[in-house]
């Protein structure tokens, strides 16, 4: 029997069944329609483009039945049986190859007091020596230090960013300790949001710096959580996946550890802190996640030094009374932490950050900016339109401000001009005054000169007159002597 006939008969059967169930399907799609079995499925109803109610399955976001705006066509979701090997089972491999060539980003935030062992634990987790100098206890406030590293394992490239809280818990007044942390996390979300809202954006090669996991280091007091811890965790739980761990667990004895753990968990629950829940919906990882969750918070010991144990070298801490092996499950929960954080749930942590925490931030931010999805008439707004309206408003404000500034500027210019004019007038007056005084003085000098010249003239005249008189007198005298002489001569004869 040719395969085609078989297939078509099955098809005919299905369409018959489909025809009967058509009505029911359009109201409440049966589970065979949507073959995604995730419990996060939910149904909602929304209006489609023509204003008709249609059921929307949240896991696919698919409107059932699928509508094609150009009409025609039967669009029921049917499971079709294949009569041969088609070959799309290589799809997951294609996807993985793509992701491998792009590389992965993973960002860890370590929150804990100075000296609690954050850097050592990171070194131990990733089996390498990240360079960092130990912080002092004298920091005036909490600041965050982010460092990026490139790790490569077989063909997987990981861009790891480790963010450290420097100075956490060192201040005398720790009221604002959590604020820089929250600001940093928000800043990363904001950067991603900005990139997403850009018109020309490149999301696929965007270096994602959003924090995927927050390791909260609890001091091993053995009693309970400190109030600083509670407050900080409460502030962070809606923004990031928190994994609490007990640091320096080799200072607690085993029986105390058990009590300590249960005390911490009960305190977290009673205070409503939502820590990261390891996913238990996927069969392959559900079991391991469930067993590991029981051991939360993980009591870890970090060490980069190696000690000879038996005939192997292993990471451990050597004390006079014994050796604490890091990778020994009886000694501490380091192996569990590594399993959970890296080997089993890394992808889920990233997904949670993107789909839950980032979406929440985005929603809050956009609502704060004034956007809404629906207006009172329950007709959906478009984000772009509201954005345009806001932009016009903003531009209008900007223009108004510009006008004001221009006016002020003009006024100031006028004032200055007036001042300058006055100053100029004064200068002119001064100049005139000076000129007049100068002229007067000149006149005086000239008068004096005239007088002087007159005097000189008079003097000259007098001199001339005097000289004339003198010469006359001389002549007369000479004549007289001559006459005298002549007389004398005459008398002799």
């Amino acid at each position: 029997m040719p395969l085609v006939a078989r297939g078509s008969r099955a098809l005919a059967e299905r369409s018959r069944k489909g025809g009967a169930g058509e009505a029911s399907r359009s109201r409440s799609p049966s589970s065979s329609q949507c073959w995604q079995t995730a419990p996060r499925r939910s149904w909602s109803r929304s209006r489609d483009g023509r204003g008709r109610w249609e059921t929307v399955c949240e896991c696919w976001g698919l409107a059932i039945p699928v509508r094609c705006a150009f009409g025609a066509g039967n669009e029921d979701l049917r499971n079709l049986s294949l009569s041969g090997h088609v070959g799309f089972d290589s799809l997951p491999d294609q996807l993985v190859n793509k992701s491998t060539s792009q590389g992965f980003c993973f960002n860890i935030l370590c929150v804990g007091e100075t000296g609690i062992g954050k850097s050592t634990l990171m070194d131990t987790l990733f089996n390498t020596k990240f360079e960092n100098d130990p912080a002092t206890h004298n920091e005036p406030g909490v600041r965050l230090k982010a460092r990026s590293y490139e790790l490569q394992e077989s063909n997987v490239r990981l861009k790891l960013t480790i963010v450290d809280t420097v100075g956490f818990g060192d201040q005398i007044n720790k009221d604002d300790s959590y604020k820089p942390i929250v600001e940093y996390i928000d800043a990363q979300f904001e950067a991603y949001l900005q990139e997403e809202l850009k018109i020309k954006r490149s999301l696929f090669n965007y270096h994602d710096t959003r924090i995927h996991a927050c390791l909260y280091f609890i001091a091993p007091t053995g009693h309970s959580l400190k109030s600083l811890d509670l407050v900080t965790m409460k502030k962070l739980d809606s923004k990031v996946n928190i994994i609490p761990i007990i640091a320096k667990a080799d200072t607690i004895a085993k029986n105390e550890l058990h009590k300590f753990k249960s005390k911490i968990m009960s305190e977290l629950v009673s205070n409503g802190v939502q820590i990261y829940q390891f996913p238990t919906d996927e069969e392959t990882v559900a079991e391991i996640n469930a067993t590991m969750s029981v051991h939360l918070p993980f009591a870890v010991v970090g060490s980069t030094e190696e000690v000879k144990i038996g005939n192997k070298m292993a990471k451990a801490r050597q004390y006079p009374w014994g050796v604490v092996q890091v990778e020994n499950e009886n000694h501490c929960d380091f192996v569990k932490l590594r399993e959970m954080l890296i080997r089993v749930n890394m992808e889920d942590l990233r997904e949670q950050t993107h789909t839950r925490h980032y979406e929440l931030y985005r929603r809050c931010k956009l609502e704060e900016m004034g956007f809404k999805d629906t207006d009172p008439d329950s007709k959906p707004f478009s984000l772009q339109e509201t954005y345009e309206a806001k932009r016009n408003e903003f531009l209008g404000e900007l223009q108004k401000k510009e006008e004001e500034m221009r006016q002020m500027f003009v006024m100031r210019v006028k004032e200055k001009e007036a001042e300058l004019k006055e100053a100029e007038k004064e200068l002119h007056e001064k100049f005139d005054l000076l000129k007049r005084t100068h002229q007067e003085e000149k006149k005086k000098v000239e008068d004096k000169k005239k007088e002087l010249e007159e005097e000189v003239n008079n003097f000259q005249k007098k001199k001339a007159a005097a000289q004339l008189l003198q010469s006359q007198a001389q002549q007369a005298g000479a004549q007289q002597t001559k006459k005298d002489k002549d007389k004398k001569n005459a008398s002799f004869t």
Partner: protein
Amino acid sequence: MDPLRQPPSPCSPRPSSPRTQSCEMLGYVGIEAVLDQLKIKAMKMGFEFNIMVVGQSGLGKSTMVNTLFKSKMWKSTLPGLGVPTPKTLQLQSVTHVIEEKGVKLKLTVTDTPGFGDQINNDKCWDPILGYINEQYERYLQEEILITRQRHIPDTRVHCCVYFVPPTGHCLRPLDIEFLQRLCQTVNVVPVIARADSLTIEEREAFRRRIQHNLRTHCIEVYPQKCFDEDINDRILNSKIRERIPFAVVGADREHLVNGRCVLGRKTKWGIIEVENMAHCEFPLLRDLLIRTHLQDLKDITHNIHYENYRVFRLNKSHVLPRGPGWVNLAPGPAPSPASPQATPRTMKVCRWTQDNSDDEC
């Protein structure tokens, strides 16, 4: 501790950015387990693929789709005597879920009966462009909502298979016009339909002429040369580009040949085996579309064509209609040759290279 794994192949060197230091790991950490996690997540979520077949009636589009996916997607329509030819182009979509070895694929096939069938085929590409843009619009509207869905349904056309009639000469003006317009918005894979009417030499000559035509008119069909990432891709893709357009034959009946059951067409002079590389190039098309480049088709649609559309749309936001955008979207906005044509040509895909660290926060 396990010994260190091998370093990456030298074919894809990626220089490390100045801000990130590369660290040597002294032992096995387990980072590569993230690949398995990815696979599990992908298998759980399932895959989507939307394909559009365009061509004149009678070229074997429906049969080809059935052959590609080895199932009865469509009933091949024979023009009945009483059925009048549709006056305008009507697009029909069919969605099926197919599963193979645990991998679920939601496949949507869009057919275009009536394309090129009228006497006056002017602007026959408008409804198709309109449909493609409408899918982009739908996705865009979902993406810019404030309360977004966890997984936005992807109805964008990932691949358009264009059937060239086997005239043996060269591309017709209709083909050229259509390909020119569509290559800007969607990945187009041209194929020579009904290739069993051409001999092998005629096929080769036809193919050369078509490639020449494509080059002359600057039509970039998939795989586009400008989106090749690294040397491996380029080598692989140039091999494919040499064989484009594939000469294919579609068949959904099985026949007995040498004791094997093969898909083929039975004629008086022999049986044309569909999956035989000596007879036709159907395996190449199938491998390209499904086995090797499916994810790449989706990626290029999402990262490039959709982004182009988004830029175009957001820049023209003063004509944005209220509400879900497809209410009164006339065939169009058929991108005017001016604006978005410039962008895809100059826009190059730079995948995640580490020297892009300067556009981070």
